[in-house]
């Protein structure tokens, strides 16, 4: 990574660390995560916990990503810092990448800390003998939970990139917030509803379902969790999603969003 991207990324990390809202966000994620674990009646094992956390994470992760990202570009724009930065030898793409990397680090930490604590809690209370290499189906292990954390962070990074794109498209802080909420609604429920309508109306046939599901970030995340986390421990012949197309769908949203942000800032 170039020094200029590092400099922009470091500034974002420090901005998040020093923001008054960051501690509240961390406490919120901790509260929801532990609330789900302790309210659940399931065995304190990795697989049941991942299953219990999946749905709350589909709401919590986009909300966290939007909270972290909606003001990034628009704040620099309204402060006049985009004009100032344009006089420095920093390309727009490097600036966007730096912003994304910095915020991504913050989001990763904010998600990983609570989930890692849950993982440690499970390691100390789980009745299952820890088996670190869950290479065979039917085996619950910490690795399953690590995969779940990784996929959850990946999902968060995708929504963060989408949020940075709308922050670049917005003309005011208020419109950035509104667009961020639109992203939140689309990611949490909007795209899934569209797919559901397509299936119910016969527009989306069974043969296309796994491919279409990868278009929705939440469905793609859910599909990846089912296929690479849950199916590892639960024997089933039913394929919930295609891991490759789901990963490609998420990656497309991430890269496409960063491209939109870059073009938008270039045209300001």
């Amino acid at each position, binding site marked *: 990574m170039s*020094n*200029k991207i*590092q*400099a922009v990324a*470091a*500034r974002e990390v*420090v*901005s998040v660390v*020093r*923001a008054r809202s960051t501690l509240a966000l961390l406490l919120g994620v901790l509260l929801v995560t532990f609330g789900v674990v302790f309210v659940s009646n399931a065995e304190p094992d990795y697989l049941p916990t991942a299953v219990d956390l999946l749905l709350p994470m589909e709401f919590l992760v986009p909300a966290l990503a939007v909270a972290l990202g909606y003001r990034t570009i628009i704040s620099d724009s309204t*402060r*006049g*810092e985009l*004009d*100032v*930065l*344009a*006089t*420095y*030898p*920093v390309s727009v793409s490097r600036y966007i990448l730096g912003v994304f990397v910095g915020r991504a680090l913050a989001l990763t930490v904010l998600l990983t800390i609570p989930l890692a604590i849950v993982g440690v809690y499970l390691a100390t209370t789980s009745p299952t003998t820890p088996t670190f290499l869950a290479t065979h189906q039917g085996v619950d292990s910490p690795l399953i939970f690590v995969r779940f954390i990784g996929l959850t962070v990946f999902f968060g990074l995708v929504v963060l990139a989408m949020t940075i794109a709308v922050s670049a498209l917005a003309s005011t802080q208020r419109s950035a917030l509104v667009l961020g909420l639109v992203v939140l609604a689309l990611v949490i429920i909007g795209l899934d509803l569209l797919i559901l309508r397509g299936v119910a109306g016969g527009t989306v046939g069974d043969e296309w379902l796994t491919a279409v599901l990868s278009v929705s970030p939440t469905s793609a995340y859910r599909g990846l969790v089912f296929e690479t986390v849950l199916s590892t421990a639960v024997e089933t012949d039913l394929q919930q999603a295609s891991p490759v197309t789901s990963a490609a769908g998420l990656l497309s949203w991430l890269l496409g969003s960063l491209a939109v942000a870059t073009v938008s800032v270039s045209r300001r």
Partner: protein
Amino acid sequence: MSDSQSTTGVASRPAANSDSAAEPVLVSEQLSQAYGSVSVLSDVSVTIESGTLTAVVGPNGSGKTTLLKTLAGLLSPTAGAVHYLGPDAEREIGYLPQRPSFRPQFSTLETLEFYTALVDDDPEELLARVGLRDAAERRVEALSGGMTRLLGLAQATVGDPPVVVLDEPGSGLDPTMRKRTFEVAHELATDGTAVICSSHDLALVEQWADQVIVLDGGSVVDTGSPAKLCNHHDADSLWDVFDIAVEKPDNQVAILGVDDE
């Protein structure tokens, strides 16, 4: 406008760069800028030389900020062109916006450390140049308006760019701070930098500027040294020049794009 009305006459301060021949570093050719149907700049041709302090003066809405942004390369002209003719530099043009603003949770030193990570420079030296060394650890949110502007001035000079564009560096500051911004601009010019600034403070412009560009209605109505402008208009001061060159008979604010009836 009280300070604008007070005049000091053409100052006897030394020329910004008397030792070396000034060379053109930034040239605009028949520059025009329009926002939709509203023409903001029309056929503006100016030459900015190294080691000089050029002031752009004109009434509100005359196109000063648009001209400076276009010269700084932040706006693409709708017609004409801007040519940078200065030496190769990592950062060719420095820019101070009209209302500089920085991330509030950073100290002044941290703010400059960020910019000097983009272009090599010494942040502490930059702070010392604008007189903010003692405020190095102070958070940006705790700076006064004047100190924020001085920090902006330091930012504009990061990387020692051959051209520095300052949009009303003294606006809203007390007389001492305002004078300090012009002193810093003059020091930069003395070191060989081409400094372009807009200002409504005609007394300070008359005292410090080597060249004055008088802008009205998006067009250059006169240009030259303060002394030359005074001679040309048979005026005692730059304020009188301004009065003669741009005064509107009905004392109304000029709104670009609205034709006189």
